[in-house]
């Protein structure tokens, strides 16, 4: 079929990701995925990838994208992660996942706790508790439009609309979805 060539481009990017996935644990991941094997790579392997290795949020990223929430990833989760982190992914989608990454306790709000965790990750725990509190309180005061003391997805989206520096995601593969 004449469209075969173009399909290939799409397939190769998926295939390349599959190769990377498989390279993490060649003895575990089978080459043949037609019968849908139930394979999950543990977080330790996923986080050893060069893209995530040094990222302070690596654990959160893995947790958000893994189906079990513990950072252990199936191939689908893996593809999911890279498709969102790809530079071709729509900004809204990235914003949504960024929100999820910062929402450490998965309650669909970024609360003071979450902000403190974020801040500690960003500054390597080198600010005093008082300073951390102060900064987080300031952020909430500034960004919390509906005055409920925490940031909802809407607040977050509103905030990033005013931050053009937002979202420089790490070295992405070619688009896959």
């Amino acid at each position, binding site marked *: 079929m004449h469209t075969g060539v173009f399909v290939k481009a799409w397939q190769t990017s998926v295939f390349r990701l599959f190769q990377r996935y498989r390279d993490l644990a060649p003895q575990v991941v089978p080459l043949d995925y037609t019968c849908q094997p139930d394979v999950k790579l543990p977080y330790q392997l996923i986080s050893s990838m*060069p893209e995530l290795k040094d990222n302070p949020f690596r654990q959160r990223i893995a947790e958000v994208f893994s189906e079990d929430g513990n950072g252990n990833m199936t191939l689908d989760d893996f593809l999911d992660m890279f498709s969102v982190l790809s530079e071709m992914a729509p900004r809204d989608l990235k914003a949504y996942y960024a929100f999820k990454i910062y929402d450490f306790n998965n309650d669909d709000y970024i609360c003071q706790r979450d902000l403190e965790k974020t801040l500690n990750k960003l500054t390597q725990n080198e600010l005093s508790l008082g300073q951390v509190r102060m900064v987080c309180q300031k952020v909430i005061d500034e960004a919390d439009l509906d005055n409920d003391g925490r940031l909802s997805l809407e607040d977050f989206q509103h905030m990033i609309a005013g931050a053009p520096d937002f979202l420089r995601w790490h070295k992405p593969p070619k688009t896959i979805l």
Partner: protein
Amino acid sequence: MSYYNREGLFNPAYHDSETLEIDRSPSRRSHHYNPYDRDSEPWQRGLTDWTPPEALPRYNEQGRYLGDSGEGNWRPTDHMAMGLVPHPNGSLRWQHNQGSVNAGYQADSAVDYITPPLEEQPPWAPHMGETLRQRGTRKMSLFPGGGVALGRLGITEEDVREEIQSGEQELVKELVAMSSRDQIQAMRVLQMSLQDKRHIRRQVLACKSSKRGLKLTCLTDCTEQVSRSFRRFGASMVSAKQAMTLWHGTIKEIGGKFGTSVLSYFLFLKWLLMFNVFSFVVNFGFITVPQLVQLPNRTDQINFRGLELLTGAGYFNQTVLYYGGYSNETIGDPPAYDMQLAYFFTIAAYLVLCGLSLIYSMARSFQKNFVLSASGNAWCLLCSWDFSITNVKAIRQRQNNLRVQLKESLSEKNQGFHMTMSEKLKQFGIHLGTWFISTGLAAASCAAIYFLCLGYLDSINDSQDSSLLTEASTLLLPFVVSLINLVIPLLYSLLSKIEKYSNPRTQIYVIILRNVFLKMGILGILCYYWMKILSNRITCWESIVGQDLYRLVIIDFIFLMLETFFGEFLHNIIGTKCLPSLGVPEFDIARNVLNLIYAQTLAWIGIYFSPLLPVLQMIKLFIMFYLKKVSLYQNCQPPRRYGRAAQMQTIFIALLFIPSFVGAVSMVAYTVWSLKPSAHCGPFQGLDTTFEAVVLWMERVNILNLPESMWAVWIFHNVIKSELFFYLISLIILVLIYFFWQITQGRKLLINLLREQIINEGKDKAFLLEKLQKLQKTMPTMASSQPAYTQMPQTYARIQEIEPDYEQDFQGLPGIPHPEEGSGPTGPPITSALIQAMLARKQAEEDEEEGY
């Protein structure tokens, strides 16, 4: 995300129907779809592995039921019934476990979702959380304690599944209605896992194929095929383009290692390179090639000696590199190619296109990075993390930067008000002093260059020989200019260490401003010298100006290389080996970008005097890219202080436009309209001004009196040469500006109103929550004993929809047989509180609707 907002719309008829079971039965995971199988085509397979017998009925029934709901003829009583419908599996049994059956389910659910039952999480809860992993947050944001609490709220698996199913059906229906392109876009934005997306897509395809099945003809099939292959072709072109983009991989690597602020320098460089490539193509194609075809009659042959590469004089003087190498002849018989007109219009067109593209990118960047940009520091925490960085050192550096920045902003707040009058005066004095010194330095260097130019002019007049020494002496001026460009900025950065700006960003802007003053001052003096002095005294002065520019570009390039070597390489060696206190050099983005802007200004000024100067600039930029990259990797660390990268980028584009491009264009325009071209060389010899070429051309056309070209003459006389036209144009532009300004003001007002409204809604929400919490406190026992009905959003939506009946339900609430009912006066106050809360909510919603 918008798709899942609609989950609030809930179709009861659908729930009670038999289809539910049909829908439920096929596990969506069972349709495994394998994207890694390269032998067959994924899209095609999406169609084939969905079996029509299953898909068809589902769609049809779904469509019918949705149709019902669309008419809005379902009664509140349906909802009442719902809680009681004996579900064969799950929900009712669960209700029994709770030990109470109750009819007033709205009240229950309203109470229940704020009062989580005390039991442990049901065994299916983890699974449910998992299914809901990607579902809309907006839905949950209605309720405090959303996601996690949901599990404890007593949602049965059935309910969740139903809810998901109905949401899914809505979504599928919406997607089916879209065109293929929109559909792909919409699918991309969906916030779900790959697996869910695949599932949805398969449903959509099934729906489509079943729809098409009714009117299946060869034609529709063919068009579908063609449009699909076009789409795929487009997608693959995008990725092919990406792969072929210059330095794509390198640029990403730099971004990963040093962050976006350093990356912006390289992107800027690449952008300038594109300008120069375009300029080269245009000039070469329309000016140089015709001239070369005509073969110039070279009078005296000068040997190539090698020094020409540096000075651009001698051998090059006779070539097409400079203005003087072009003739004023008309090439070929009709259709004739008039070199004068070609020269004029090519350069004019290039400059106009450049200007338009600059204005466009500047306006875009300005709108994106300044107008929309929020004030305050909140972004600093949540939006500043550069996820593209993968290098450990850069990450540490960035973390340190952020920490320092935060600490500074905290201390600023503490210290900001403690400055005494004398301290303020002292600071003001320091600033005044530094500004005085920096301006003085700039003025002094301009004066030095001016006198150097005059001396150089005398030497040209004195000696007519072409010895190597005289040729080498021409290098003195560009050497001094480059030296000043190198040394004075260093002094400026020393100065900025004395003065202490509270805001690091102000400091960066001040340094940039001073450097721009210096560089533009130097260029201004040089232009004055070329236009006013040189042009009157020397024959073929355009070529001399071209040579000067050539030398400036070359020497500037050499200095940039030296600076990279000494400034960065040696600094690194000394910093790491001898003097650790000196440290590793930072990559100074502002200085480097200003150097690029300076070089580009030279190239733009030179476009008239030396049409092939862009070649030089291209080579220069190309080498600079690799040089800077190597130096960055080997010697530099990411900058310690960085502004907001995006805003810096806007400022650089603006600087490229306003002093640089506008300056260059005004100089070229002055040359073209006011200066007399040299009498014995170049395309415009013998004319009073360059522009006269166009005037003469128009006269020729007028004399020929060809009817088909009369419009050109008319335009020339009535538009280009008429003051009235420009007067009218400026008037219209002024009116338009005023008009748009008024629109902006109106929008600002609107934005403020909307913001206020958001805040008001927040207050509403807080008020309601408070009410509900009070209610929860006053009646804890009653609440905890109620069986929880789930699906809060739906309940919520329904409560609002059936508002008239709703109050009655609540009035009737005390009448419901309830174990706690007679125990105290808690009943009526609660209901009234609830009613109040709900009414307030409704009121708020109405207000909102009016507001929009």
